């Protein structure tokens, strides 16, 4: 996998809020078809780092390269042009609008005369949502009347509908029940097969160990560890998150077990 060139390179990213160093000199790569778990407790800077990559937040230093080209990431629209889609923890849905309006928000389909093509949008939405959840009905209802799972499905559909190359998922399973969580896991697998790179922010250690190829741990704005998922066990990851370092006399786990 590493023979390929990375789809995302973030080099020496710095973000400060006044005197607080939210992200301090962090570098991070993502390869096509790779799932990278970004871990750290609240305020460690993982969400900041991901917001910078999705264009939702500016940065004070460093560079971002997408498929080898340096890009300026100053708005969510820039990120979108680079093929980066984000599923936010808050889902970022407009509650009073229905599913098609949310799915196509900011990039509405139009007829030849420049008017909204609601029929086409509804059709496409129905297809997109059914592919994720065959039971999805009432798509023309305002999303405020939908269940947490349905809302999550809309947010996910929005990220994958537009042929993203990079998907950022911020706690995608936090609001979901077991069956829907399984659906997300299945989806991540599908995206991986299509060669899409995924950043997965999660607190759920089982999810991370199961879904990710590689994990990156942040603490106080710094990257304190980066490992292939086989090299570390849950205790090692916890140690990185809490102490910022691996346990004493640590050796890569996959080597000792062999």
């Amino acid at each position, binding site marked *: 996998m590493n023979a390929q060139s990375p789809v995302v390179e973030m080099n020496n990213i710095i973000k400060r809020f006044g005197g607080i160093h939210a992200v301090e000199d962090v570098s991070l790569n993502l390869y096509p078809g790779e799932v990278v778990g970004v871990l750290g407790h609240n305020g460690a800077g993982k969400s900041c780092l991901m917001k910078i990559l999705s264009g939702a937040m500016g940065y004070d230093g460093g560079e971002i390269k997408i498929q080898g080209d340096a890009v300026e990431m100053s708005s969510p629209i820039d990120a979108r042009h680079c093929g980066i889609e984000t599923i936010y923890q808050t889902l970022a849905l*407009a509650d*009073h*609008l*229905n599913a098609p309006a949310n799915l196509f928000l900011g990039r509405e389909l139009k007829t030849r005369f420049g008017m909204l093509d609601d029929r086409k949008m509804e059709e496409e939405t129905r297809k997109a949502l059914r592919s994720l959840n065959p039971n999805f009905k009432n798509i*023309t209802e305002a999303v405020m009347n939908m269940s947490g799972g349905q809302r999550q499905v809309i947010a996910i559909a929005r990220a994958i509908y537009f042929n993203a190359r990079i998907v950022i998922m911020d706690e995608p399973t936090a609001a979901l029940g077991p069956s829907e969580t399984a659906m997300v896991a299945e989806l991540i697998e599908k995206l991986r097969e299509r060669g899409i790179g995924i950043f997965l922010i999660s607190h759920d250690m089982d999810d991370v160990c199961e879904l990710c190829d590689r994990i990156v741990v942040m603490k106080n704005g710094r990257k304190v560890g980066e490992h292939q998922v086989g090299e570390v066990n849950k205790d090692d990851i916890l140690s990185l998150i809490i102490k910022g370092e691996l346990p004493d006399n640590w050796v890569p786990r996959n080597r000792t077990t062999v």
Partner: protein
Amino acid sequence: MTSERTTEQSPPPRARSPFLFWMNMTGDERKDLVQKFAALFSLVVLIIAFSLTSNAFFSLGNAMTVSLQTTSIAFLGIGVTVVILTGGIDLSVGSVLALSGTVAGLLVKAGWPVYAGMGAGVLVGTLCGIINGLVVTRLKLAPFIATLGMMMIARGVALQLTGAAPVSQLGEAFGELGNGSFFRMLEKGANGLPHMIFPGVPYPVVLMVIMAIIVAFVLRRLSIGRHIYAVGSNEEASRLAGVNVNGTKMFAYATSGFLAGITGIILMSRLVTAQPNEGVMYELDAIAAAVIGGTSLMGGVGTISGTMIGAFVIGILRNGLNMNGVSSFIQQIIIGCVIIGTVYVDHLRNRR
């Protein structure tokens, strides 16, 4: 689950009877319809009540009078609705209409042709709206504060420009827009005096209908309209989805200013006098019309058709109460109660 999947694969067949139509609607569409009917229903009740209590109320002539009286609330209400949909508020429309009207009056007085003077008046209104938008989006002030400031500034400028005195003797052409009408039919009676067959449709009423249709079209069929609802519903989500939030807000405030400008020139034209004191408290009528029509002050919910109904509820209440000789003090009390009552009913319905 499998049976559901097969039944849900294709959209439900189109309705054939009104009942099926009702069954086929989603909860939201149904709610929307109930809302419309609730407001329309109260409008019909008002018309019936006033027709019974006053002989002069239910006539074509009075219908045109009511429509004409309602135009200013409707114009302002449409503009304010667009702003409220984005989650903002526009308190400046009453003052902006005065400024637009006086600018138009002064320019015509100074020798400008009527259309140019009026055009400049509307432009001034739009400019005030754009300034509101800039203060909200660039200085990041709360819309209430920004437009409260503009309310005082525009009124002050209008008073200063005219020395607080009305500008009169503007010529007959200045009164054409406000007082003219289409299809007015007169007949010479037996006594030699003209006898009116059809009162005609006043220009402002025609303009009101056109404006309402245009704005409703923009809100429903164009992406800027969709963005207006989205910004009012969840501003941060809209920004993250790539919506130009500031541009959308600018558009809303400019629209409101533009419509306030139109209201200004029409009102001054009706009086054939530019009155710097015109339009005091009109912003509250406009907001009331929007709210009665189901617009949520939190943003994201509301329609132009609702606001038009709201404007007519206020217009007909005023007219009908006048016809029944109810004092203007009592009228205020009644309209206040109607605002609270309709919004409460709306609230109950949404709470579930």
